[in-house]
C-alpha cells in the first residue's frame, strides 16, 4: 500500500488540443457584466486583472479586440497625486498596480498617459534604508515589491532612480539554504517569490549571484507525476506555477531540467472546452489569471501558435524588443 502523493489524475477525456480561439472569446467577454458580484469582489486588483487579460490577448495576437481608449482613460484616472497607481478608481495606490499599469501602457506604447516622472518618484520613495521596498506608504516589505519596483523602472528606462546595489543586497538576504527565496529574510522558499527574485536579479544584472544548480534542482522537484508543477513541496499542482517555476527555470538557464511534454499535457488539460479559459487544475473554474499563465507557460515551452513571451516581465518579446529591453538570462 503506497502513500497518496498530493497530485491530480488527468482524465483520459481531458482537453489535449490548444483552444486559442475559445480563450480569446473568453477574455474578450470577461467583465462585460460589470454588475456581477464576483467582479466587485475582485475590483481591488482590477489593474492586474486588465494586465492579465490584455497580455494573454496580445500573446494570442488578439489585442485589437480590447478597447484601448477606455483602458487608457481608466488608467489615467487611477494615478494619484503621489504618483502611484491604484487598482481601480477610488482605490488606494500600490506598487503592484503601478507595475500593472505601466505594463499595460507598454503594450500600447503609450506610457505617457501617466505622469512618468511622478511614477518614478513614487517608486523611488518606497525604497527603504536596507534596500528593500515597501508596497505602499503603509510600509509592508516583501521581495515581490522589489521586483515590481525594478520592473516598473526598467520599462520606463529609469532604473537609475533607485539604489540598485542596496536593493540587490536585500533580495540576496532573502536567499535560503535551498537556493530559493522567500518574501522576507528567513521566510520559506516559494515559487512565486523565486520568480520575483530571479526576475529582479535579471533586471539588476546580478543573476550570477544565484546558485543556478541548487535552485534549478529545487524548481524541477516541483514537477509531479501528473506533469503539473506545484509551488512548494507537497502542494497540489497549479497552472500558475507553470509560469512561476518555468519562467524561473528559463531565467537561470535550466528549463531543460523538467519534462516539457508532461507539463504541456497538464496545462492543456486545465482548459475548459465549453467556456474557454484555463483553471488552476483540470476540472476547476477558469479565470483570467490562470488563463494568462497557462498560455504564457505554453509559450515558454515553444508553442508555435503563441507569441514568444519574455520570462522576466511576462510580456510579449516583441514589446520588449521595441523598448530595447533585454533582461539577462543564464545559459
Amino acid at each position, binding site marked *: *500500500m*503506497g*502513500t497518496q*502523493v*498530493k497530485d491530480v489524475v488527468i482524465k483520459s477525456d481531458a482537453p489535449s488540443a490548444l483552444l486559442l480561439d475559445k480563450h480569446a472569446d473568453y477574455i474578450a467577454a470577461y467583465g462585460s457584466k460589470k*454588475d456581477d*458580484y464576483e467582479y*466587485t*469582489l475582485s*475590483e*481591488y*486588483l482590477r489593474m492586474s486583472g486588465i494586465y492579465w487579460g490584455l497580455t494573454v490577448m496580445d500573446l494570442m495576437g488578439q489585442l485589437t479586440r480590447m478597447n484601448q481608449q477606455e483602458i487608457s482613460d481608466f488608467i489615467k484616472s487611477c494615478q494619484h497625486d503621489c504618483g502611484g497607481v*491604484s*487598482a481601480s*478608481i*477610488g*482605490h*488606494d495606490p*500600490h506598487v503592484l498596480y503601478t507595475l500593472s499599469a505601466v505594463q499595460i501602457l507598454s503594450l500600447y506604447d503609450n506610457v505617457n498617459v501617466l505622469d512618468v516622472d511622478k511614477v518614478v518618484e513614487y517608486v523611488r520613495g518606497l525604497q*527603504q*534604508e*536596507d534596500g*528593500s521596498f*515597501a*508596497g505602499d*506608504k*503603509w*510600509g*509592508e*516589505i516583501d521581495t515581490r515589491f522589489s521586483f515590481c519596483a525594478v520592473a516598473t523602472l526598467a520599462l520606463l528606462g529609469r532604473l537609475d532612480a533607485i539604489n540598485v546595489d*542596496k536593493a540587490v*543586497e536585500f533580495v*540576496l*538576504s532573502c*536567499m*535560503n*539554504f*535551498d*537556493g530559493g527565496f*522567500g*518574501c*522576507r*529574510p*528567513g*521566510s*520559506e522558499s*516559494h515559487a512565486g517569490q523565486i520568480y520575483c527574485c530571479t526576475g529582479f536579479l535579471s533586471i539588476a544584472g546580478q543573476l550570477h*549571484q544565484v*546558485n543556478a*544548480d*541548487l535552485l534549478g534542482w529545487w524548481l524541477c*522537484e516541483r514537477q509531479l507525476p501528473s506533469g503539473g508543477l506545484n509551488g*512548494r*513541496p*507537497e*502542494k497540489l499542482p497549479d497552472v500558475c506555477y507553470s509560469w512561476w517555476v518555468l519562467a524561473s527555470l528559463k531565467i537561470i538557464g535550466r528549463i531543460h531540467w523538467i519534462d516539457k511534454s508532461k507539463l504541456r499535457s497538464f496545462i492543456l488539460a486545465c482548459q475548459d472546452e465549453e467556456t474557454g479559459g484555463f483553471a488552476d487544475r483540470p476540472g476547476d473554474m477558469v479565470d483570467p489569471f490562470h488563463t494568462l499563465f497557462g498560455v504564457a507557460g505554453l509559450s515558454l515551452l515553444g508553442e508555435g501558435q503563441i507569441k514568444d513571451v519574455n520570462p522576466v516581465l511576462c510580456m510579449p518579446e516583441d514589446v520588449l524588443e521595441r523598448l530595447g529591453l533585454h533582461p539577462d538570462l543564464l545559459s
Partner: protein
Amino acid sequence: MAESEEEDVLVQRVVKDINNAFKRNPNIDEIGLILCPEARYNRSPIVLVENKLGVESWCVKFLLPYVHNKLLLYRQRKQWLDREALVDITCTLLLLNSDFTTAWNVRKELLQCGALNPERDLYLGKLALTKFPKSPETWIHRRWVLQQVLRECSPPSSDRKEQCDSGLRDAAERTLLSEHLHRVLHDEMKVCAAAASRYPSNYNAWSHRIWVLQNMAQGNLKVLHDELSSMREWVSMHVSDHSGFHYRQFLLKALVRELSQSMHHHHAPWPSLGSSSPRSPSPDTQPGHPHHQANGEATAAAPCPSPATPEDQSSVPAMPQLFHQEMELCTDLIQSFPGHETLWCHRRHVFYLWHHWRRDHDHHDGQGCGSESPQLNHTDAGLSSYPHTASPRGVGIDRVDSRNGQAQEGQNAMEVDGVGVPDPRNTKRLKRGPPDPCPPALPSEHGFIARVLEGCRSPEQGCFALAYRKWLDSVIGQ
C-alpha cells in the same frame, strides 16, 4: 446606476444588524456564510448563534456592492461618512471581502486619529481569518497594527520630541507594557495556529508567525524554545505541512544564533538591524532580524516581552541536544509516515543547519576563543568522540575547511540513536541532563538511508530516500 430604495433600506438595516451583533456579543469567534438562496419571512439575514455569526447568502449580492460603492464614494470625497459609519461599513466589507486593501487602509487612518482601537482591528482580522485563513491583505494589515502597538510600548527613541516620554516611565509601567506585549505575542501565536489548522501549508500564516517573533521576541531564548516544544505535537499531526516544518527550521536557526551569541564573549559583531548582509546563504551569517519601518528608520532595540533570564538560558538545552532531538523527531515521522516529501526536506534542512553550526564552531575555536571555558565548546573538548566530515567538495555551499581537515569516512560510524562518550571536562553540560547526544553525521545518515531503502514498501519513500542521498553527496560533500 440607481438602486431601488427598498434595497437601500434593506442593506442599511443589514449593516446595522451586523454591528449590533458585535455589540450584543463581544465574544464572537467565527464568521461564515449560511447558504440560503432566498429571504424568508422578512427576517434579518444576520444570524447569531452562541459565538458564531452567520450571514445568509441571499443578501450578500446586495450587501457587498452597496457597502463597496459607498466606501469608494467616500474615498473619492463624493460622499461624507462619519467615523462610526466608516467603522461599521469597513467592518461589514472586510467580513465579506477581506482582501479589499483600501478598506483596511481606511481603518488604518481611523486608528491613527484615535477613532479606532488597535485591539478592534486585531479582533476583526482574527474573525476574517476564520473565513479566509490565507487572506494576504488581512495579514499585511495585522503587521501594520502590531507595529503601532509596538511603537506605543517601545522605549523613548531619539526622535520623540515630547519631554514627558524622556525616561519617565517607571518600572511598574514598564512591567505592565512588557506583560501587555507578552499577551499580544501569545495571541498572535494562537491566531497563526488557528489559521494554519484551517488551511494546509498556509504560507501567509506561518510567515506572519515568523515576522512576529522577529519583531516582538528578538533574542528571547525562552520564547524560541517554548515554540519549538509546543509545535512538536502539531507538526507530528501535519506531516505534509511544509510551512510548519519550515517554522521549526527558523526556530532552530534563531536558537543557534542566540545561543552562540550568549556563549561567546568575544564574537564577531552581529549585523545590526537594517545593515547589509553577506551574500552567502550560510545560516550563521544571515542577518539578524531586520526591523523595517515605513519611513526607513531602524528602531533601537525593540521591546522584548519578558526578556530571557539567565535561568531561562540554562534551561534551554544546548545545540547538539536540540539538533539530536530534531533529527530524532524527523526519523520517527519518516518511519511512521512513509512517502512524505516534507519530512525529507526537513531532514535536509536540519542536517544542513547542524553541519554549518559544527563547521562554524570549529572555525571559532581556531580564532582564539581559547580563553573561553572549554566546556562551552564541545568540539574543542570532544574531538575524539565525534567523527568530522571531510573537507567539503560540494556544490559551492561549503567554503570553510573543517578544522581537522581529513575525512573519517565510516571509521567512527555511529548510530543516529547511539550515545557519544561524554567528555569529562564538560561538567557543566553533564549537570544539565543526559550525556551528550551523538550528532548526526554523514556516515550515520547514509546508514539511515540504507535502512529506509531496505525496509521500504512505498515507492515514493524510496525515491525521497535516494534524492536525500543525492543531496547529501552533492551539497554536503563526501
